[in-house]
């Protein structure tokens, strides 16, 4: 849509709108950062935009007096294991869906897409009982398996689109040249679908890093908890220490935003192919 009116008023409207969007999108984060750097006295006084006496005391307290470092380590461990497992499983699956003809292929592809619509809350009860029967309650393996399963439908469909875009002739040429199929895939196909793998990896990381429900239900002991549940516990434990809670918020947000900023263009590409749920 083009806004009508004179050039000046059009430009003004545009920049006013952009400023509004910036305020909505970024200000809450700025406020979180600002609060996390304030000493207790300033937090409960008349609010100032930036701390008058910036301090890292809240961060020090967060790491010294709580289990935050343990939650952080658990989140990193679970998220990266999930990403690795999901990429291997979905790359194999997507390759199979695009390179082999076999009975039931389309049915399987359709079923996988359907599961994309399911929200975890709709199966969490039987899921919990199943995990219990398998003896996996209170293990990180249970989390990794849940996240992998819930990322698979999206990653399979995303990678399927990328594999389809690689011409079959390229692979066949490599095969004719005497390379075995694994080598042909590794040297010819994988480099070409790398943007897809990166996008799928980011989506998986974000889902695993952010999840609250599975971690809430499947993990019971404090030293195995991941960040979202751990921080919620900190929040509920005593009188809320806002400075420390905001410091925790900053620490959880930084990896996501750093990751995201580094690979934004791949992410947008992936979005075009199907979007993340949430």
């Amino acid at each position, binding site marked *: 849509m083009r806004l009508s009116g004179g050039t000046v008023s059009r430009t003004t409207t545009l920049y006013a709108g952009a400023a509004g969007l910036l305020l909505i999108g970024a200000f*809450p984060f700025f406020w979180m950062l600002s609060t996390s750097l304030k000493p207790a006295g300033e937090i409960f006084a008349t609010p100032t935009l930036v701390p008058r006496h910036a301090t890292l005391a809240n961060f020090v307290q967060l790491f010294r007096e709580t289990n935050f470092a343990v939650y952080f380590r658990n989140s990193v461990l679970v998220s990266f294991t999930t990403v690795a497992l999901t990429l291997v499983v979905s790359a194999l699956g997507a390759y199979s869906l695009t390179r082999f*003809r076999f009975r039931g292929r389309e049915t399987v592809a359709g079923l996988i897409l359907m599961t994309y619509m399911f*929200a975890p809350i709709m*199966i969490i009860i039987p899921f919990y009982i199943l995990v219990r029967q398998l003896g996996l309650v209170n293990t990180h393996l249970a989390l990794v398996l849940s996240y992998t399963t819930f990322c698979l439908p999206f990653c399979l469909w995303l990678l399927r689109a990328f594999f389809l875009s690689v011409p079959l002739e390229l692979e066949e040429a490599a095969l004719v040249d005497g390379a075995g199929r694994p080598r042909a895939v590794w040297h010819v196909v994988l480099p070409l679908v790398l943007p897809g793998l990166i996008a799928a990896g980011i989506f998986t990381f974000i889902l695993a890093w*952010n999840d609250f429900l599975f971690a809430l239900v499947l993990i019971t002991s404090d030293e195995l908890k991941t960040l979202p549940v751990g921080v919620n516990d900190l929040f509920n434990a005593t009188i809320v220490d806002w400075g420390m809670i905001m410091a925790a918020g900053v620490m959880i947000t930084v990896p996501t935003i750093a990751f995201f900023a580094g690979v934004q263009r791949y992410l947008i590409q992936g979005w075009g192919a199907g979007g993340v749920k949430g």
Partner: protein
Amino acid sequence: MGWLLLAPSVLLIAGLVLYPILYNVWLSLFDKHAFLPAQAFVGLRHYQYFATDEEFWSSVRYGLVYAGATMVLQLGLGIMAALLLNEAFRGRNLLRGIVLFPYMIPTIVAVILWKWLLNDSYGLVNHLLMASGLVRTPVAWLGKDYIMWSLILTSVWQFSPFVVVTYLARLQTIPPELYEAAKVDGAGAWRRFVHVTLPQTRNVLFVIVLLRGIWMFTKFDTVWLMAGEGGVSRYVRTLPVYAYARTFTYLQAGMGAALAVIMFALLLGATALYFRLFRDEEVVA
């Protein structure tokens, strides 16, 4: 060979999604404790119970209010932001990245952020309202009167970026000639939006409304984290939260499973109706 490579995916999805769905239906016919193995067949009794359960009906009402209000606001805000970000101005790419942030962060961060901004004694919102003289005493935004509004605000902030990015992706593919032609015909900005943009983006809107509708109606973490389990939580207890509470607080897994089945049936019905009402034969997504 084909099946072999696909096997890990199929096994995981069949074992951890499809089997639980079927098991869930089976489970809803039993009285089952959440932790203990004991169970007793009760047939459809749970469903009969919920038919007259005031808590159930209120959770459906709260769910509809929550999903409905957040949907309308997300669509309005999301579409306006996407139209703006489709214009050319300096810093546009950076802003496109920034508006996505709220969607990328964990829900717990969105919730603690807004709980702090809306805090009754020390929150920035109340401070600004009082400093500007709009209110005289602090408003209890997280108390029972306003908790639903605060929850809606937090959710709209968190989930609108999905609408922005998805809508923007489609906007970028509209041929500029269409707008030029409309301009030659003397159409103003509003008429160009109604006669060019809207018809062109019909399909993507169809998908956005479908996905966001399903995801808002089944949203658990934002609602649960915003209101907790006791206190004000009963003023925002939507169906997913009620199903969770039945299972993991009252430990009645069978009843919780029945609620999940009802949720699924409601969504299936709504989706079928939605397709009937809004899906044209001529358009293809």
